[in-house]
């Protein structure tokens, strides 16, 4: 819990630019998904992370390619931050044979094992024990990999979460539990789900695990916290739990905004929009060096182009043969 005080205020431009690139990529991919979703070609439930990119973007710069990660229904950002193939992700959203699951999973089931991204699952809390199992494997094989488990504030209400943290503590497993607290589970605010004044990270800390809390919309602060906790988990000190405050801008599932439903106020939304992790980081970069503005213009063009090509790739890819649905149910077929 004491990390906040120790955060190093030195601003590393190289790292900041990498994090910026991650945020910009995730944001732009998802904005384009939102724009194109009404075309009806991405025919699967889709949960966007727009507004929440700060945590995955900074995490990306703290982990290694062979570290494991698992995530949730809202997993695009984590997948891309780990280096998952953009073509394969969009192919999956479009249900194409080039998708990372050959069209068997959709947006909620993303995988790219070549970068240690082992999967996302659609049931709240479901992937948490899997991530712990990956850490157990790393411990048994005596590798120095860590396993990163993304979850939301809703998953903290699932039994699987407590069971998983407990076992990770008992076996001192190299796990990083990363909770993105965006205040809502679908349309249900924390106030109807958890007691008033509940401090999630303090509660979890009582289970015997090191914890830390941070502003998820301050990417450089996330980077500092993440760097230290990754080091702890990797050094054999046991698991670490991180809670980051953040906010999803768009509807729980789908491409639109949903403030008109009145489950949250316009004012709350606007307050969080002012904490945009992308703008915040850009301001920090330009304050440091005004000439970076021109560099970012160029980088944006390159990333936008890469995204355009990936959408084109996904749209032009063929569907799998309908007969494929009935194959490879078992691994020994």
């Amino acid at each position, binding site marked *: 819990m004491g990390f906040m005080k120790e955060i190093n205020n030195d601003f590393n431009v190289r790292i900041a630019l990498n994090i910026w690139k991650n945020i910009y990529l995730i944001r732009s991919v998802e904005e384009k998904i939102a724009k194109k979703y009404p075309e009806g070609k991405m025919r699967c439930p889709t949960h966007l992370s727009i507004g929440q990119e700060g945590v995955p973007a900074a995490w990306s710069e703290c982990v290694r390619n062979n570290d*494991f990660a*698992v995530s949730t229904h809202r997993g695009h950002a984590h997948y891309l931050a780990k280096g998952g193939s953009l073509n394969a992700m969009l192919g999956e959203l479009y249900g194409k044979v080039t998708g990372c*699951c*050959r069209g*068997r*999973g959709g947006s909620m*089931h993303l*995988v790219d*094992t070549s970068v240690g991204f*082992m*999967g996302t*699952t*659609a*049931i709240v809390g*479901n*992937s*948490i*024990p*899997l*991530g*712990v*199992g*990956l*850490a*157990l*494997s*790393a*411990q*048994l*094989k005596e590798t120095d990999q860590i*396993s990163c488990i993304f979850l939301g504030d809703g998953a903290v209400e699932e*039994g*699987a979460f407590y*069971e*998983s943290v*407990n*076992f990770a503590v*008992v076996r001192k497993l190299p796990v990083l539990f990363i909770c993105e607290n965006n205040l809502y589970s679908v349309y249900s605010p924390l106030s109807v789900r958890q007691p008033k004044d509940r401090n999630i990270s303090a509660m979890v800390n009582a289970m015997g695990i090191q914890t830390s809390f941070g502003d998820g919309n301050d990417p450089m602060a996330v980077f500092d916290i993440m760097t230290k906790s990754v080091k702890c988990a990797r050094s054999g000190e046991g698991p670490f739990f991180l809670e980051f405050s953040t906010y999803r801008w768009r509807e729980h599932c789908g491409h639109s905004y949903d403030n008109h439903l009145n489950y949250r106020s316009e004012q709350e939304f606007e307050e969080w929009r002012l904490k945009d992790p992308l703008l915040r980081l850009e301001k920090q970069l330009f304050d440091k060096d005004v000439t970076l503005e021109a560099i970012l213009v160029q980088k944006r063009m390159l990333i936008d182009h890469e995204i355009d090509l990936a959408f084109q790739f996904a749209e032009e890819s063929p569907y799998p043969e309908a007969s494929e649905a009935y194959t*490879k*149910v*078992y*691994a*020994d077929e």
Partner: protein
Amino acid sequence: MNNPAAQSKTFTESINEALVQAMTLDSQMICYGLGATDPKGIFGTTLGLEDKFGKSRVFDMPTSENAMTGVAIGAAIDGIRSVTTHQRLDFFLLALDQLVNSAAKWFYTYGRPVPITIRLIMGRGWGQGPTHSQNLHAWFAHIPGLKVVMPSTAYDAKGLLLSSIFDPNPVVFLEHRWLHNSVSDVPDGDFRIPIGKAKIVRPGKTVTIVSMSYLVVEAMLAADYLNKHGVECEVLDLRTIKPIDWPAIYYSISRTGRLLALDTGHLTGSVAAEVVARVTQHCFDQLKAAPRRLAMPDVPEPSSPGLTKGFYVRANHIVSEICAMMNLSREICEGAPIEPEPHDVPGNWFKGPF
């Protein structure tokens, strides 16, 4: 090393031998469950494993059935095989999310094998009652991606457990508690019985009795009795519930023309129901009588021995069904072996508590 010698062993000894064999063959395999390293070693099945293979590979676990199933899946997708055990199937119901949503779907969705074996022990009698006695193989068989194995002898238990462990898919391995002390000649060393193959445990040409797990014992008692009255029952032990050996069933029906399907689970939605349905569809013109089935009633199993009298499927029920199917005399029907006394234990070896 393969050793063709076969010695008389109990079901639990066979399970233990299979685990030792598998952990020796695969130096990464892990084995855990509540009580796996305690002094009783899950009815003796896991005794000695911790000493042989060490604490990191053989361990007791937190009372967290769901997460610990997910842990097995997570380790499996990184190449670590596991056998997890639950002393009653009923506790494992807490883990259905991991079993159904993850284990069964992982290979289909992500293309990565999940080589896990989940041993579930099913109780009966001695007051096990509503939540220590459920036989839910039909549930598991309903889920694509799972394999479901249900051995009836010590021999099959060893050969099928080794096949289950080295199968690249999630396997639910169901042990009936009433079989744990049963004895057969079991080879030492590594031997495998293929998953998905039924066995004719008694050939006959008049009626096919499709059975599984403990009900093979009752089917054999009934078949022995009926044989004395000139009715030759063919007893088929399914051994695997998913995938089920349809060719073996159809072949038997082609010779007998009659079917009685047994099930250790409740009647509605049972595996016996599936057997009757498929046989009716595929062998309709070969049937000489309407197929029948016998399963547990559609009520929870009560605890009191007063309430379980006559509750279980027994040899005399099997005889009655076959008598009705074949219009046999009332004398044959009434002379069938009756439920032993006491009725709520598999034999004198069982002194409870579970």
